[in-house]
């Protein structure tokens, strides 16, 4: 299922070329305030939030779109999704639970390679 682009996104498209990003954001807010009735504000979807699950996926809920680099919506069948971050899923971008088999550990940091560490220390 694909969600049609919401109003504010269209507004951003129209103004993107002429305005800086900050201006565009400002315009978005104004446009939204003008167009949105009070009941819509209450009914409207919450902004997207991401839960970084320890040793697991990124849980995303709220108002968001997942698109390919060309802007084509990625098929999405549920409101809240889990995005793979261990790299092992067979159904990317979604999680399929493979992190559990991989013993994926979000607390473990990859050691910084010596040359990079040295450069950072000298800087």
């Amino acid at each position, binding site marked *: 299922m694909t969600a049609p682009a919401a109003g504010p996104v269209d507004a951003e498209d129209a103004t993107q070329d002429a305005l800086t990003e900050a201006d565009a954001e400002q315009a978005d807010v104004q446009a939204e305030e003008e167009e949105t009735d009070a009941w819509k504000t209450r009914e409207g979807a919450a902004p997207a939030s991401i*839960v970084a*699950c*320890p*040793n*697991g*996926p990124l*849980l995303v*809920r709220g108002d968001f779109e997942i698109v390919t680099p060309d802007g084509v919506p990625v098929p999405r*069948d*549920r*409101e*809240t*999704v*889990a995005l793979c971050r261990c790299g092992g899923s*067979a*159904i990317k971008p*979604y*999680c*399929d*639970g*493979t992190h*559990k*088999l991989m013993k994926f550990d979000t607390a473990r940091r990859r050691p910084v390679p010596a040359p990079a560490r040295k450069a950072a220390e000298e800087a």
Partner: protein
Amino acid sequence: MKIPAPRGPVSATLIDLLRNRGGTGHANAYGSLNLLLDEALAATADLLRDEDLQLTLFCLYELHYSGLDGVEDAAEWDPELIRVRARLETAFEDVLRRAVPVPELPAPESEAVAETLFRLAADDDGPSVSRFVASKASVEQLREFLILRSVYQLKEADPHSWAIPRLPVGRAKAALIEIQADEYGGGRVERMHSKLFGTTMEGLGLDSGYGYYIDQVPALTLASSNAMSLFGLNRRLRGAIAGHLAAFEMTSSIPNSFYARGFRRHGFSDDVTYYFDEHVEADAVHEQIAARDLAGGLAEAEPDLLADIIFGAATVLAIDALLGEEQLNAWQAGESALLPLVNDGGPAAPAVTAAAGGVTS
């Protein structure tokens, strides 16, 4: 659902009583039901595998779900039947409390509870029906697999929905609603998980009517469903039903990818495997919410429920291990995992005629 065939004196008496509620000899029927129950409870060697008693409990619970054909809806709250149910439940819960191994309790904090549950699920090394289905099961065995699962899957999510009004306002309730809404298709009937399972059954030539195969389903599978109803229908066990759902979700996404593989191996279409494919993705989401927000959130809100949350989760793993062992033993011996049909009124079942023919590698 249709009234099942009785499996012993207790279920026979109950079914007779349900059919003739309000008729003459009514009061006597309750008396003999209670007497027979006393005897059966005292005599049973293994309540989890007791065909007569698990079917009796299943029928009593069914009055709270879709009801039994020809039985008055009012039977659901018949005080005498509730009393019988409560006595059976006490014995059943007692067996579960003694038989289910429970790990050391974590702190009643969300992340600690989630960690304990994930570890419990990861350490589960019970017999793997999913691996057998993926690589070895014949089409007949796939049908048996679906028939056994249909007891729960055709009313998928319902037993856990009992918990919704029983949880306090807050994180745990919000989590349960979020999971259940997805289970019921997020407002789209064609995406309801119970509906998808019916489509999979039909793809293998099976009847997707709820309870159609009940007479072929052994006690242990009924016990697995009865445990959910026990936890869901008793407010005092709301911790156990929350833990049950969490463990259920946490042991689902990877096995479901194996099930899908088993059905694809025999050339079944995406329509048939969709139920399993959907669960790979859905339950990878649900397990995160169920572990932290439902089970963990409830432990934080009501720390007294912590032990039951873990007990409910451990119950899933313990019963699954017993079920897996029973099914694999039957299949590996070239036998059917279903009960043989004893009466002519049962389903004409191509699914049980050729138990293990054509096992492919």
